[in-house]
């Protein structure tokens, strides 16, 4: 019995031990995408960070009856007038305004004739003359070591301790 349990814990810890290459790549991409955000968004853990900002999407009938809706909301409904909200409109509102990425997709730049310059062809090619340098993810100095679990860099035992406590990807995987 006790053998079995030991086996299971080992299995779990092994799976938690290493974050694979794809996942690491994904985390880096997500971080880079965040650099283009206007505002910081709380990571979506269910109900969201701040309660007062959280609003349910209006579901047609309820909004018309007023009820707990605020004055501002009522006004919006009035402006909306007799127009019926289609499902598509609600979905569009939830998606928010169109982003540049949407426009790029719509423009179908990949269908342009060969050699025609476009947004996609203008992206700089990967570096040929310099390799990525390695900096400590905690203090920013040059780093000599790699976290065995998530592949982040660190430079000293102290930084490693901070890293495992705070940022190590073990919880993201």
């Amino acid at each position, binding site marked *: 019995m006790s053998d079995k349990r030991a086996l299971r814990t080992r299995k779990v810890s092994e799976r938690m031990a290493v974050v694979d290459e794809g996942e690491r790549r994904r985390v880096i991409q997500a971080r880079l995408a965040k650099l283009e955000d206007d505002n910081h968004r709380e990571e979506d853990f269910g109900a969201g960070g701040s309660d007062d900002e959280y609003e349910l999407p209006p579901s047609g009938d309820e909004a018309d009856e007023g009820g707990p809706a605020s004055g501002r909301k009522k006004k919006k409904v009035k402006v909306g007038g007799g127009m019926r909200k289609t499902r598509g409109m609600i979905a569009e509102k939830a998606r928010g305004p169109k982003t540049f990425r949407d426009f790029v997709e719509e423009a179908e730049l990949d269908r342009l004739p060969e050699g025609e310059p476009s947004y996609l062809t203008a992206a700089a090619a*990967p570096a040929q003359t310099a390799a990525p340098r390695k900096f400590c993810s905690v203090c920013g100095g040059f780093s000599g070591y790699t976290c065995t679990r998530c592949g982040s860099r660190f430079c000293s035992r102290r930084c490693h301790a901070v890293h495992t406590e705070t*940022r190590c990807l073990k919880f993201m995987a």
Partner: protein
Amino acid sequence: MQDVVVCDLGGGSVKLGSARQPDNPKVFPNASAKHKGERGTFLGEAMLGMTDVGGLALRRPIDRGYLVAWELQREIMARALKSLLGTLQLPACGLVLTEPYLNLPALREAAVRLALEDLGFASVYLCPPALCSLRAHAARAPALPANAAGCALVVDAGFSFTHAVPCFDWRVLRPAVRRIDLGGKALTNYMKELVSYRSMNMMDETYLLEHVKEQLCFVSQDVAADLALASTRRSPFRCEYVLPDGLTDTWGHVRTEEEVAAAAAAMQAARAGQGPPPVKQPLLQVNNERFMVPEALFHPSDIGMEEAGLAETIVQAVRATHPHLHALLYSNVLLTGGTARCPGFRERLYNELRPLVPDDYELHVHAAPDPALAAWQGAALLGASPEYAHLAVSRQEWKLRGVEALRKWDT
């Protein structure tokens, strides 16, 4: 002559003015801001008058350098135009508007519609900012042979991205334009992430951090040495930023020696039992972030981006042009855009570029006197010149011929 309004529509800030007064454009954030949990919205120009810049939620009409939220942009523009024009009548005015490189046709159309239909200008000319900057540069240094040929490699380090734009004969060589997806905004967010992890949570203070970045960041000339220096106890780069208190100090400031001494004295007095304990100011500690943040632009691979650094991107752009142009382009590299204001930018770029450029070519890196305004100043020159009349598309033309009328900008 027709009155022409000149507008450099940047992702970070709008530069707006009349071509008749080429010295003092209005510069204001291209955004709307709202305090979290409050109603009032500050629109564009109104953001300059804010006394509390903490905890702002921003909305920007420009996404990744391209104008996509026309509604918001129209409101921001309409407001600023109202106070700019005074007696002028919009329907009689022309407009020079900057346009991102390799714009999508749909977005170009929408921008023209915004100018002619929504804002009601008589005519409009959309112009790539690189050509405007080059025009201003050529007016300052007409003796340069490259300038006489309308030839330069314009580095436009803006808010949304950074471009290397080869120009020849007053035209952008479109197939050779190269882009790094890193600009002032990404750098601000990167700095925000770093200081939030290392010093104090500033994740909701994007607008404030932008200001801190502009005050403190510089481009290191020798990263390895500076980094080693920064990790010592007496790091010359370490400094503390006093965050705004929302009352007397809108933007906060770098903590001065006197303040440190005064705080220490007050502390000692309090210890000795004379006087109250000093009020603790919220302080942001900054050290190697000051140069590691702009560093990302020179080596994007450091933060996991696959694109080449700025120097190599310039070389890529030049190599994509005709070999006969290479010498001319390298002899006239022009630095523009708000991010290029960072101290040490020009020197560092020269030092990185020199080893990559064949040694029989001359290399000159010119920095515009005010990189953020360079495009606007050039556009103002264009607006005041008779060329404008040939280049602009009038409202009638737009109504009659629609998209066809815009073809003349494509050459």
